[in-house]
């Protein structure tokens, strides 16, 4: 019994696949058209990667309604996950700075991903149509000042724990969810660990062993040692 695959032309990827032939993804395109039609104003932006995936972004105030429509009208009835993303690059890098030197200044300009975004943080969910097995990633902006968005627990009961986790990790409020207790951390924990400006202590308490380099000759180093060139990890 050979598996039935969705009607998508398989992307031909080779190891150096600069010349990928663009495939037409009729199913997802139709899906996107239908979603555009039914969501109307609520849909802010969308991004379609042929043969791969579909991203849409909806307006914050119509978050709950849009997801409800996606479930009821487009039969995205399977709840994959809900999470958030902080688009601000971490000011700490990978924690590999030399503690004896002044901390390097890193570019922390916020740059959003697929389907755009206007705020630092975005909440996104993954929904799948259980019949066609096509999925969609729905994003929504959350305001920087008071990050909050409507809760989805009335649409997908499974969102409960995901929203609790997201609340704990990003400090995003879910309006209508009255049980946003911490799942992992102690109740009196301060800070939101998955925000990029939350330092990872494990990488702060000791210096990176890779900082040290081979000690040069006492008389000065005339020739650059070829070996220490390999310090590529930044």
């Amino acid at each position, binding site marked *: 019994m050979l598996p039935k695959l969705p009607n998508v032309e398989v992307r031909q990827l080779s190891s150096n696949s*600069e010349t990928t032939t663009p495939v037409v993804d009729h199913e997802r395109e139709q899906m996107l058209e239908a979603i555009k039609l039914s969501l109307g104003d609520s849909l802010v932006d969308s991004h379609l990667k042929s043969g791969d995936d579909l991203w849409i972004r909806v307006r914050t105030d119509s978050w709950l309604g849009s997801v409800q429509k996606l479930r009821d009208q487009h039969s995205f009835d399977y*709840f994959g996950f809900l999470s958030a993303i902080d688009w601000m690059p971490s000011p700490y890098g*990978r924690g590999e700075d030399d503690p004896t030197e002044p901390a390097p200044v890193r570019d922390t300009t916020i740059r959003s991903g697929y389907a755009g975004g206007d705020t630092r943080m975005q909440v996104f969910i993954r929904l799948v149509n259980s019949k066609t097995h096509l999925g969609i*990633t729905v994003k929504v902006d959350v305001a920087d000042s008071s990050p909050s968005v409507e809760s989805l627990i009335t649409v997908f009961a499974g969102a409960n724990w995901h929203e609790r986790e997201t609340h704990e990790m990003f400090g995003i409020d879910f309006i209508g969810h009255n049980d946003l207790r911490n799942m992992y951390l102690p109740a009196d924990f301060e800070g939101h660990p998955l925000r990029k400006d939350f330092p*990872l202590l494990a990488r702060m308490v000791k210096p990176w062993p890779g900082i040290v380099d081979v000690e040069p000759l006492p008389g000065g180093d005339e020739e650059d040692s070829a070996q220490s060139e390999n310090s590529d990890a930044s």
Partner: protein
Amino acid sequence: MTMLGDRQQLSYIASQAADARLNLELETEGMTLNIGPQHPATHGTLRIIARLDGEQVVWAEPACGYMHRGYEKLTEVRTFPQVTTLVNRIDWLGSFANEVPFILAAEKLMGVEAPTRAQYIRTILFELSRIANVSLFLGDLGVQLGAITPVFLAFRDREYVLNLIESATGGRFHPNFDRIGGLKDDLPAGWIDETRAVMKKLRSFCDQIEDLLFGNEIFQSRTRGIGVIPRDVALQYGLSGANLRASGVDWDLRRDQTLPMVWNKADWKVWTHPDGDSFARCWVRLQETRESTKIVDQLLGAIPSGPVMAKVPKIIKVPEGEAWVSTENPLGEMGYYVVSRGDLGPFRVKIRSASFNNISITPWLLRGVYVPDIVTILASLYFILGDIDR
């Protein structure tokens, strides 16, 4: 459909109300039973707080987080090759299967595809880790229900599979064998024949477990009709894997998704069960293990020759983009939402682990069952603590 969300939402209030009701109507006092975090039934450190009326659960809620290791944060300070060794440890019983979706997501972003031989070996190892994982489940199921022998049989036969994984990858539990663009190494000589022999043993193990447990009338009476999850609830909570298929949803990501893996080269069957109860979940897993041995057997004979590694640069920088790849892991749908910024490491990795969703249904499911059924239901939902807490 009723507002299940509301029902679960109000669980705490309901428990209070239930107390009041008990006190008023029956003049009895409820009892709060704390199961875990250290308890024989919670294979890991899951804590369940249950409110009991006699032996009946009025309200129960799992409290997790005793094993939260913050992998999503840790991935942000690691380079792409360093992540695989971390994600190995999410579902520690089927660890190879954890690597695959992450590597596939990274490959997708880079536009690289592993050579066919690597795809075959990946798929075989993936299925082996499923067998290793689920065979332990089948044994553990016995322990949860009071039968002590199955777990030893499971440990006995899982050892063969772990030996195979170790001799191929070098790691018994944490293979770290996947690389972006292929595999670390090829298989050692003689491995294929060994695997065939082991698959035979595993099939007879499945028969033994079926005779010892599944056919047992006591086992059936303990599991049939216990913890029924209807189809629409299963979808709402995002259950996956055998839990979803046991509720009658014919959905297997191995079959219903195009990935550079070779499951479609083998002839196998996706088992579903209409009942949605504990027995169905266990039974689907048993059948899955059998199918996995079949897949492995078929793929072993079809491994093409060639390299196992595509051409990738030595220092891997993944182009900017977002990718979501999920695979049908032993526990269910395991996926990674990888966001890259063209850096050495991922910008953000959302780990969608199966057990987190699977176990989030328990407050809904545990209402009104008996204390022994808590154990049955948890065992049949099958979670790995590392997979819940990540």
